[in-house]
């Protein structure tokens, strides 16, 4: 990967990116109920927490359709990278033995996988920022997909939309904390696939809770 690409204002959009952007334009009607929605729950493992310096090591995701986690759709991809973050290796236990894909292939696979699904993740913003950085060389500026952050969704369910965010104890909305609260056994933490799977299980439970509060279609969920 050549680093000078990042400094360019705008990369040329590859054809698969254009195709993806075209597909993603289709919006979802507000009245659509949850069991008709299609979600991609994703997580990334990175070399660190600074989007400016760090980069993605692996990507894991699973789809939810009909309010069911589709194990058959689960993926876990390891990225070929020039940098090796020492700390990340310690946290994530990635030793570099996994079969890796090149950045270009990753981009193709990723965009095809994401399609026009709703993206879901815990602190999704960070993952998307990392992904967008990785995809800048192929000409993608930002993901147009609708997004749901499970941390925000949990806060909204507990406190409503109009909450004063200064009064929220964010520690209660970490993935670990929420899994414990919703009795989801945490396995394979700090692997992209494992965290995506946990987030998916959490999301299913949050959706049920949301319907109970009257949030039962896409329009309401997307507020």
């Amino acid at each position: 990967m050549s680093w000078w690409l990042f400094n360019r204002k705008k990369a040329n959009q590859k054809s698969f990116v254009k195709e993806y952007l075209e597909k993603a334009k289709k919006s979802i009607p507000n009245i659509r109920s949850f069991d008709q929605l299609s979600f991609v729950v994703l997580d990334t493992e990175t070399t660190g927490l600074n989007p400016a310096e760090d980069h993605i090591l692996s990507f894991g995701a699973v789809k939810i359709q009909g309010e069911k986690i589709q194990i058959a759709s689960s993926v876990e991809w390891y990225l070929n990278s020039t940098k090796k973050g020492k700390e990340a290796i310690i946290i994530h236990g990635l030793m570099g033995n996994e079969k890796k894909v090149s950045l270009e292939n990753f981009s193709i696979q990723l965009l095809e996988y994401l399609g026009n699904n709703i993206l879901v993740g815990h602190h999704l913003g960070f993952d998307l920022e990392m992904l967008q950085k990785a995809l800048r060389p192929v000409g993608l500026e930002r993901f147009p997909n609708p997004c749901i952050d499970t941390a925000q969704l949990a806060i909204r369910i507990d406190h409503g939309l109009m909450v004063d965010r200064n009064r929220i104890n964010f520690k209660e909305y970490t993935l670990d904390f929420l899994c414990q609260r919703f009795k989801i056994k945490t396995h394979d933490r700090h692997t992209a696939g494992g965290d995506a799977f946990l987030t998916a299980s959490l999301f299913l439970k949050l959706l049920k809770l949301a319907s109970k509060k009257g949030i039962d279609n896409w329009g309401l969920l997307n507020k």
Partner: protein
Amino acid sequence: MANVIVNRVAEFLKSFPPFSFLGKEELEIVAASVEIKYFEKDERLFLQGEPAQPHFFVVKDGGFALTEKKDSGEDIIEYCDQGDVFGVLALLGKRPYVLNAHAAEDSLLYFVPVSVFESILNQNSRVALYFAAGFASGQVVVRQDLSQSQKARKVFRNDSSDHSLLIFSDPSVIKISENVLTANENLNIQEAAKKMAFEEVSSIVIVNDQNHPKGIITDKDLRKRVVAEGVSLATPVSQLMTKNIIVKKSDSSFSDLYLCMIKNRLHHLVLTKDGTIHSSVCGIISDHDVLLSMGNSPAVLIHALLNTLDLGEMKMIRDRAEQMLRYYLENEVAMDFVASVMTEINDVILTQANIIAQKKHAADYPELEKVKYCFLSLGSEGRQEQLLRTDQDNAILYDDVPDHLKDKANEYFLKIGSEIVEVLIHCGVSPCPGDIMASNPKWVQPLSKWKEYFSDWILKPTEEALLNSSIFFDYRPIAGSKLLADLLTEHIYEEIGKKHFFLNFLAKNAYMNPAPLGFFKGFVVEKSGEHRDQFDIKARAMMPLADLARLLIFSHGVIKINNTFKRFEKLAELEPVYQDLFIQAGKAYEILMRMRALEGLQQGNNGRYIDPEKLGKLQKQLLKNTFSPISELQEIVRVRFQLDYFLK
């Protein structure tokens, strides 16, 4: 390679049947096709009469209730919890659902596509067998109250592979004797028979000078061709042997050997170096060996036991019986069946041990040949409740002998008793810590002395006497003269009839048993020692029930029933007022036996101590439910035997 998500799903499925029967690859295929859905409490999954979905279901977390609509409302037919599979009728018959299903609590459910599983069903016969046998929940299994022992199974479920469905065990276990008894062609019949008798084998291979097989003579040939025909014993073997024998190469596969035996109706198959009769003999396999290698069915094991006096083989068979036991327990086979099969196996071992002992010692005491004796099993084995090889309790009862033979008889029967005890120890039954065994001179006695013992215990119910009574009153004759045991039983019956007070003491003992639950409804655990913080399932739950059953059945003058369930069953019949309670008590005992045996099998010990912390909520509840009959029965006993007055 599957990713971490698929692996996680596979990991979960793997520990539950029928998924536990799948190979790694099959399991990955199934896991990768699973869909997971979350259900809130009371949410419906399907309704009676709805067409089958293209999935069947596995409970990941939480629980599902299967209910049936009746006029009176909905009856819960089955409760499925973690790892339970349901909705399989759809898989098998593609018929509409016969029950309703709803989440009984917040639950995660795995949906397994029928299409994926069907192909596995076709290929994997064990999985097919599992479903065919109807073990999967949801096929209508009606259970009541305490008999939800399916849950008990999970308490101690073990993740080991299952062995019992294999028809043949590991071929390496199959014993092919390499020491073949051979004889030269010009030997005569008598000499050959002598050799066979000396080596205790049922066949002899006749060979030429190069050790090439020429023929074979078996026990059956001696019977049919020699004795029945009245042939001279001096006839050379070559005239009587079976010629043109079939041989096989010594390193042939087992299935090859076995098929050859079946096809040719051979009881013995001779193996040679190159598989022709023109090379030297190097092994023989008999149908007995084959039988031994065949799976773990009770009939096979018992048959095999009856045909051996070899200690090593007896131990091996007893070990094998334990695998069968584990399978039975894990698959909810009815407890009375399991207990009787295990009792039968234990009894056959004892009978064989008795034969071994007689063979060894009878010749030295010709004057005692006619004296009847009886080997008694005591305690749990006497009650036909011993599933694991926990400690042995036994004794010998022999007929009274004239004075001049007393010492001799004492010596002889003690030798017999000690020998039997040794055989049992060899077969893995540990010795009794209290030395209540037929190797202890105190417990090898003539009938008159035994009568005296019992009269004494009944007349003077000291603490020791009461302790003894809980072991000795449950005796059961195993080997030898059962008539002697009957005489003793009659004596005890008369004595108890005369001294009713004995029952009050027995009642006091049963009433004073330690309570299983503390004031705050927690398990009462051991305060100190090796088993600190563990629950003594034997002393606190099983013994009280066994003691109560014994007392109450004695109070009805019924002496001959010595099994705890059967006692409760009889009591239910004798006292219709308390019928339900007695039935519950019998079931509770059954569940406790199962729990203890599974715990023991898993921990490789006697299963007596259970760590309540390791039990799930449901299992704890199940165990606690078994206690309620204990306190109710104790209350009846307190009133009936006037213990308030008596204890003062």
